[in-house]
């Protein structure tokens, strides 16, 4: 087991190098001079522009810039934004916010998926099953930003159940509205996965045995059926986590959540190499680690799965 974990962790290194090199190259290859963009419609004096380019090492060839960056990272310095803030500081400020949002969204998605999926499976073919399918299809069909605007307009502005934007109030309590919207937009696939998984489990011999032994339903379902049906759903939620980290950009913009999605988008627009690469690299590593954790979770859920 331990050697398995170690091997998985070692995989992070080539992923890290590959990702940073690729992303840095992409940012570098983007057309447009980020320094000129700082001046908007004006044309700055060429000497001023070249002084600024010197300062940000933008005149050096690609590999030199990359080298500066990598040596910095290995010493813990993730670079500096155009505004002079260390990227590590920006990460420390924004990552927890998006992390909270992602966790809450996954929590809501999970809960909805498990409950509705199980009930649908148990009432397969009945009205509840059909209605839940329709609602799921609708939630997938509506684009996320439409959902965001609808939720913001009705739940926040018209009925006043929540505040329209998050802003400074980005602790657990303030993130309910965006988390609800995100969770709702994602739960459909997990719910259907859960449903088919539970249907499959319900047909197993040992479930029939449990019922014939006289166990009540309220014991069979949570204890025997659920645990065995969760594996596909958990795999899927690992993918959701990746989507949520960066896909929340649109939601963050609409609800004004000061998280990584927003910051990354602004940095990409401005052509800030260090910021974009650092953020994306952190995401890649996080994604790999989360997948590792999920894989280890299988072992907990299903004792038949063992890692060598």
């Amino acid at each position, binding site marked *: 087991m331990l050697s398995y974990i170690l091997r998985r962790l070692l995989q992070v290194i080539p992923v890290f190098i590959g990702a940073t090199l690729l992303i840095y190259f992409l940012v570098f290859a983007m057309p447009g001079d*980020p320094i000129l963009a*700082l001046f908007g419609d004006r044309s700055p*004096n060429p000497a*001023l522009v070249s002084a600024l380019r010197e300062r940000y090492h933008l005149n050096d060839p690609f590999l030199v810039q990359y080298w500066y960056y990598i040596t910095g990272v290995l010493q813990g310095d993730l670079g500096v934004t155009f505004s002079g803030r260390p990227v590590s500081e920006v990460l420390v400020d924004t990552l927890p916010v998006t992390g909270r949002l992602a966790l809450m969204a996954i929590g809501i998605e999970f809960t909805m998926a498990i409950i509705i999926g199980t009930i649908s499976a148990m*009432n397969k073919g009945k009205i509840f099953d059909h209605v839940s399918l329709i609602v799921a299809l609708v939630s997938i069909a509506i684009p996320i930003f439409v959902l965001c605007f609808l939720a913001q*307009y009705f739940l926040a502005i018209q*009925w006043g159940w929540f505040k329209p934007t998050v802003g400074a109030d980005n602790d657990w309590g303030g993130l309910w509205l965006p988390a609800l919207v995100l969770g709702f937009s994602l739960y459909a696939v997990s719910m259907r996965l859960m449903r088919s998984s539970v249907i499959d489990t319900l047909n197993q011999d040992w479930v029939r045995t449990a019922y014939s032994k006289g166990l009540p339903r309220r014991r069979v379902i949570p204890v025997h059926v659920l645990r065995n049906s969760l594996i596909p759903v958990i795999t899927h939620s690992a993918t959701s986590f990746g989507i949520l980290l960066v896909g929340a950009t649109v939601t963050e*913009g609409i609800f004004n959540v000061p998280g990584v999605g927003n910051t990354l988008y602004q940095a990409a*627009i401005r052509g800030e190499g260090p910021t974009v690469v650092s953020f994306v690299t952190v995401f890649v590593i996080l994604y790999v680690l989360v997948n590792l954790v999920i894989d280890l979770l299988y072992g907990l859920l299903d004792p038949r799965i063992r890692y060598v």
Partner: protein
Amino acid sequence: MKRNKIAVAGIALLATGAMALAGCSAGENPDQGGGSEFQADPDAIILTNGTEPEHPLIPTNTNEVGGGKILDEIFAGLVYYDGDGAPVNDMAEEIITEDPQNITVKLKKGHTFTNGEEVTADNFVKAWNNGAQAENAHLSSYFFEDIEGFINDPGDAANPDDDIFGAQGDMSGLKIVDDHTFTITLNKPASDFALRLGYSAYYPLPDVAFDDMEAFGENPIGNGPYMLAEEGAWQHDVQIDLVRNDDYKGERQPANGGLTIKFYATQDAAYADLQGDQVDVIDEIPPVSLPTFQDDLGDRAVNQPSAVFQSFTIGQFLPHFSGEEGVLRRQAISMAIDREQITDKIFFGTRTPAADFTTPVIAGWSDSIAGAEVLEYNPEKAKELWAEADKISPWEGEFQIAYNSDGGHQEWVDAVTNSITNTFEIEASGAPYPTLAVMREQINARTITTAARSGWQADYPGMYNFLGPLYATNAGSNDGDYSNPEFDDLLESGISNPDAEAQIEEFTQAQEILLNDLPAIPLWYQNATGGYSQNVQNVTVGWNSVPIFHQITKAAE
């Protein structure tokens, strides 16, 4: 039966939800009768929108609205501009323009920074020298380029490689006479220099700033009507908390207790907050809400001309657009654009068709300059002029207008090019660029092969600012390489003229030349749009499209 209970409960839940969503019409929030007693709370905090400053809060290194909005409230310069764009003395007691190249500044006595240090001539001179240093490469350093000692001209002996832009060491043009007096000597005549001194680049800095400029940029100490609520009041990407500065003795006395500027990622989020009563004043309306915001907000909507001028530039180096043929074609194109219709239909009245090359909010603006007919929609005349140009040299190819796709320009560019196609029966279209940076790169390198959208936001409410930097020969922002010695002469003569009225006369004459040559085709003035909630009163928007915060009053909670 038992199983059905859960199903029925589930259906009931879904049904209620569906009915609730369907049943609620676009109900209006009941107007909480704002008409009755409005008790202004002198300590109330006004909530407003802003964007995260792109740089630390150092006046000479800030050139965007996010940082500028904050700086204008926490600092007080020599003068500030009132609602009509006229300069009013703030820290200055008197500014004497001896002649177009020499200015004496006398400061008021007894004004302090929030750390107790007195505002003296030294604070101004040191701040300006710091901002002008070539090695600091501050973004607003060009505001000091007219001061003697600032190295700019390629022919300057101190600039052999033409790679220095700025001062090296203290500028010789700034001399401190005593604690409250200093003189400014310019390296070229600029009789409107006194008018420029309200811009944020000219703010003073306390001595403590020079000890650690980086730390100062995070927690600036100013001398203005507001100050940072505490150390760390600037929460990056979230908001900044300002409170009233009770030590401020100037004219801009706040009628409220402070200002919290919330940084919004999108304009939609800001507007949503205004509708949800989470923000008091906003100064921008998202494009999607332009058709409806004036109905939604009624007389709490703001829509007035601002100091932003929009145009598109046709370079003198483009084929068929130089010399006499060029003049004819430019005038023809200008007359083929129905500005009224575009500002009405595409912008829902949030732009004002241009009548000149400046903006209505500055002194001396006129909508009846000789030759302004070229800015009116006249397709017959346009066809005539175009046909005359074709006699000189027949048109070939496609007429394109370059624009940046991330700026919301596609609709008007398409409208304009369609109009050109319909009027002249030639091919015309827009040429989109992914970002402004890409487009500007080509424009600066003069490798652009099409016309390109351009615009100008005034640094200070003066006419010269719209004309000199854009259309003078070899001027910094003269994207089209326009050059007309007559125009240059009028500009020079105007800027050396100490009499303000005569200056405006000469600049207006200069505009007559521009209206004939049309180096850029004026389109419209961008309006300042915004709105405020029912909790606040006395909201007026200044010449620079920013609300005059110190006048706003808020009701007691």
